[in-house]
């Protein structure tokens, strides 16, 4: 039972990580392969601040904001040339630019901070909840993720900016004609995706630890979720995250890491072959 809960909470963490990537892709046709590195950057900054003796809440908030700022910076600088192109050309340009960025950041982190890792310890390790022993870390991450999603959904449904985001995903040209400043909304979305990625990194700190070399793994995980959930569907992303979280936790427990990875990747490839719009995709 506690495996199921762990799996679901891992799923929530995956959702935090992947929603941003899905958003950015839906909005601009850009698959941000530096997404995982953005998360790691925030986690590392939080870890460094913790080492410097700052209180955990301050350190974590600063880390999350740093992730957002990094994503914003990537948008304002590197992705400019990509946005000025369209269709497949934009896709390829952004793919390779963000791939290069992820390598550059990964190299920098592992070179400069090889031994920095983010670990957040809670005062008690587990609590008893309706007769089930639950790790407090799971509760913390679950609460964090659910609150975040509540706020996110509210923002999308009821604010004008949220509506603008949804309408650009559907019809970029139409949004332009309505007077929506597509460029600015896109930049904001990247910032938002950075914040969410930063939260995912903090969640990782609660679970076990976050090291400087975990960016690539984060990116791949987000990519798998995005593919299985459908690169344009929020509900799909959410469902896929929970499902993959469960599969990941249970399979790692029973058959080991390598096979789990192979299974996850095989699911990804199969999804693309069988239902390229996403196994669990459904809009809105």
């Amino acid at each position: 039972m506690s495996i199921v809960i762990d799996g679901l909470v891992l799923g929530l963490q995956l959702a935090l990580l992947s929603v941003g990537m899905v958003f950015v892709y839906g909005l601009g046709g850009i698959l941000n392969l530096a997404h995982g590195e953005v998360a790691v950057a925030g986690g590392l900054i939080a870890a460094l601040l913790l080492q410097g003796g700052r209180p955990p809440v301050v350190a974590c908030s600063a880390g999350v904001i740093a992730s957002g700022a990094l994503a914003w910076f990537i948008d304002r600088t590197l992705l400019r040339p990509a946005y000025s192109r369209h269709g497949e050309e934009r896709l390829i340009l952004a793919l390779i630019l963000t791939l290069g960025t992820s390598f550059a950041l990964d190299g920098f982190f592992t070179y400069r901070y090889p031994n920095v890792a983010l670990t957040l310890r809670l005062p008690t390790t587990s609590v008893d909840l309706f007769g089930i022993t639950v790790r407090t870390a799971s509760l913390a991450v679950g609460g964090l993720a659910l609150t975040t999603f509540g706020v996110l959904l509210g923002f999308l449904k009821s604010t004008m900016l949220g509506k603008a985001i949804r309408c650009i995903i559907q019809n970029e040209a139409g949004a332009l004609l309505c007077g929506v400043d597509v460029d600015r909304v896109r930049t904001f979305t990247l910032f938002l995706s950075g914040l969410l990625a930063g939260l995912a990194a903090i969640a990782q700190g609660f679970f076990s630890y976050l090291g400087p070399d975990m960016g690539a793994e984060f990116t791949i995980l987000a990519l798998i979720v995005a593919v299985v959930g459908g690169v344009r569907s929020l509900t799909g992303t959410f469902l896929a995250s929970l499902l993959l979280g469960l599969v990941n936790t249970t399979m790692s427990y029973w058959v080991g890491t390598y096979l789990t990875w192979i299974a996850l990747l095989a699911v990804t490839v199969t999804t693309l072959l069988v239902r390229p719009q996403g196994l669990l995709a459904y809009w809105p």
Partner: protein
Amino acid sequence: MNARPVLSHMLPVLGTGIALAAVPLFVRESGYVLRIATFLLMLATYAVGFNLLFGHTRQLFLCIGVLAGTGAYGSVLLVRNAGLNPVAAIAVAVAIATGLGAFLSYVGVRRGFGVLFVGIVTLAVSLIFQNLVLGLRKYTNGETGIVTQGLGVGLAENPVQAYYILLAVLVAALAVYQEIMGSRHGLALHALSDDEVSAELSGIDVARYKVGVAALAAGFISLVGALFADWNGFISPSLFSVGHVDIPVLIVLLLGGMRTLLGPVVGAIVFTIVDAIVRPFGQLTVLAYGVLLVALFLVFREGTVTLLQRGWEMVQSSTQRGQVGRGVAADEDGDPLSQRTNSRAKSPY
């Protein structure tokens, strides 16, 4: 009648071969430099394959390492565990990898995948391969790797001979490339890299071309992979990871110039020099790769060879007409409306 055009279009290939053949004469004392030069040949051959895949048929195969690794692990395991003789083992491994390349391409073509999906699928294949090799520890020794001494044709013991064999492979790849591009098929490939639907409508069998090119590229890549296993004396999964093979190959091709004959060679030379400079800094190489990739794609997308060609043309035209040729002004401020209707018109349904 026929011999002259054949010879003249093969001249650059021969010239490259002869120039590179002279390298061991100069570096005979230094085994280290020869090693680097041999590695350069392999990188260039990988890039010729990737050029065919990505440059000419827009198939973003992020599994060059898998194809090379299939050649490497396939040949080594066939000798070690099945007792095949090394040459036969290499042949079988190359055949397997060729089939894999063709299969991946076929799947992509059949499902109508764009660049992105082919990229994701092949990236997933790369990661599956890594985990497979790590997981099948019984056969592959996992991360520890396999010492290949005595399992191959003995390239590790004869570095100069190894150099020439790999040079022969590179020259062969270049010759095949040049032969294809000079023929009717070259025109077809050019058409389909421009616009697949239009190419299809003019009677070009896009699917066959893509799959055929993928098979050919996979063949050369896996052959080099198999030879690498023998030459290096040791293989481990990380030697065939995306970061170790695909990224450098991508950089090499961008550096040299996509869709050019000599781009892969020039790119490999420049890359090798840069790599030799940053290698002592350990983890910084990864950073350097990343920065290189970004910088290249932003400012240098056409590559050295194209740039040199254009420079040469400009010099020629300026000496002939006394004026500098007009640069091509790219329209940067695109129009999403027109572009979208355009792509809509192109989409296959």
